[in-house]
C-alpha cells in the first residue's frame, strides 16, 4: 500500500469519528433545548433502592477482579506477539513454529499455575 493511501484510509476513519462527535454534540444540544429544568436535592442524589444513601459513595470492591486484570495483561501481550507471527506464518520455517509453540506453552503453564493457585475459584 503506498504511503499516501495508507494515511488516506485513516482520514476516512477520522471522518467517521467526526460524524460520531457531531452526533454526540447534536444529541446533547437537542436535549439541552428540549429538556425541562427543575432540579432538586432529592433528584440529584444517587440511587440506592429508594432509601437514603449509606456510607461513602466510592465503596470498595473485591481484589479478585484485579487479579483478572493482571492475567489479562499476560495474555494480551501474547496476542501482540502472535498476530504479526500469524500473518507471515506460512512463509516461515519450522523453527518459527516451534519457537511460537514454546512461547505459548510457557504462558499456558502460567495460566495453569494460576488455576492451581485457586485464582479462578470464586468461593
Amino acid at each position, binding site marked *: 500500500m503506498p504511503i499516501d493511501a495508507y494515511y488516506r484510509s485513516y482520514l476516512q476513519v477520522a471522518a467517521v469519528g467526526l460524524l460520531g462527535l457531531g452526533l454526540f454534540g447534536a444529541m446533547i444540544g437537542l436535549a439541552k433545548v428540549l*429538556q425541562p429544568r427543575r432540579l432538586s436535592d432529592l433528584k440529584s442524589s444517587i440511587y440506592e433502592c429508594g432509601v437514603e444513601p449509606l456510607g461513602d459513595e466510592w465503596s470498595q470492591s473485591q481484589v479478585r477482579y484485579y487479579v483478572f486484570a493482571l492475567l489479562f495483561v499476560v495474555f494480551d501481550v501474547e496476542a501482540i506477539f502472535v498476530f504479526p507471527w500469524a500473518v507471515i506464518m506460512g512463509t516461515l520455517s519450522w523453527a518459527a513454529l516451534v519457537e511460537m509453540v514454546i512461547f505459548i506453552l510457557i504462558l499456558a503453564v502460567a495460566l495453569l499455575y494460576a488455576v492451581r493457585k485457586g485464582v479462578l475459584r470464586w468461593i
Partner: protein
Amino acid sequence: MDWVDYLIRSVVAVVVFAAILGTCTLLVWFERRGAAWMQVRVGPNKAGPFGLLQTVADAVKLLTKEVFVPDSADPLVYRIAPLLSLLPAFLALTIVPFGPGFHIGDRYVPMQIADLNIGILWLLCMSSIAVYGYILAGWSSGSKYPLLGAVRQSAQVISYELVMSLAIIPVVIWAGTLSTSGIVEAQSRYHWYVVPLIVPAIAFFVSGIAETNRPPFDLVEAESELVAGAITEYGGVRFMMFFLAEYTNIITISAITTTLFLGGWNGPILFGTIAGWSVVPLWGLFWFLLKTGVLLFVFIWVRVSLPRLRYDQLMTFGWKIMIGVNVAVVLAVSFVIALMEQGALPMFWAPPGR
C-alpha cells in the same frame, strides 16, 4: 485522487453511518417485538404499523428528559463517558467490507469506509477502548451499584477479549493477512472459514455476545442484583447514547463474524449484468446483509432463550474452557498450515495464495 474521490468516500462514510443508526432503530424494535413474538406476547404495537415507530417514540421521550449530573458524581468524567463508549462503537465498524468495490466510469467506489491494513487489530483496539466508557461511567457516578457493575464489566470484557483475539488468530494464519477485505477475498465464493474453523467461529460469536454484555452474559446489568450496572445513574439523552453504543456493538459483532467466518459478501450467486452494469456489488451487499441479519436474529434468539449465567460460571467458562480450547486450536491450525506449505498435506479449503 482529487476532490471527486474524496466526495465519493465521504458519501460512503455518511451512508454507512446513517445505515448503522437506522439498523439500530430497527434492531431495538425487533428485539422487543421479536422477543414478544417468541414469548407469545403482543409487544409494542401502538406506535405506527406493527409498532415500528416505538423506537422513535422512545428516542423522543429520552431526548425531552432532564439532563443532570448527580451530586456525588465527577462532573467531567460523567459527561465524557457516553462519548467514550459511543465513538469506538462507530469506529470499529469502519473496517467492515459491505460488498465488492466497483467502478463508475474510471472512479472507484469502495463499499467499505476504510480498508486498513491492520483491520482486525483495529477492531480489537476499539473494543478495548470501549471498556473505558463503561468503567469510567461506573466510577464517575459516585454510587455503589454503578461501581460494582463497572468492575464486573471490565473483568468480564477483558476476559472475553482474550478469547476473541485467540479466535481471530486461526483466521489470520489461514488468510495470511490482517486486512478485512483481504480475508473476505481469501474466502472466495464458498470457501467460508466457518467450515475448517468451526470452533473459533463459535468461540468468536460467543465471546462477542459476552463483549456486548448481552444475555446470557449480562452479569454487569443483572437487573435484580445491580439495577442497571454501570449506567444506573444515567438518564435521558446520555442513557440513550449507551444504548445506541450497545446496539452498534451488536451490529459490529455480527458484521465481523460474517466477514471473518461466513465469507463476508461472498455468496453462491455473484454475477450478472443489467443493461451493461455489473450487479456483482448488489449481490455482494445482499449476501452480506442476509448473513449479518441472520446473526442479529441469533443475538435476539439467544437472549430470549437462555437464562443468565452466574459470575463464577462465566469466568470459569471463559478462562478454563474458552481460552484452553482456543490456544489448542491456534497450535493445531498453525501445524496444519505449516504441513500444507511444506507439501506434506494437500492444499485444502482455498489456502492462502502465497
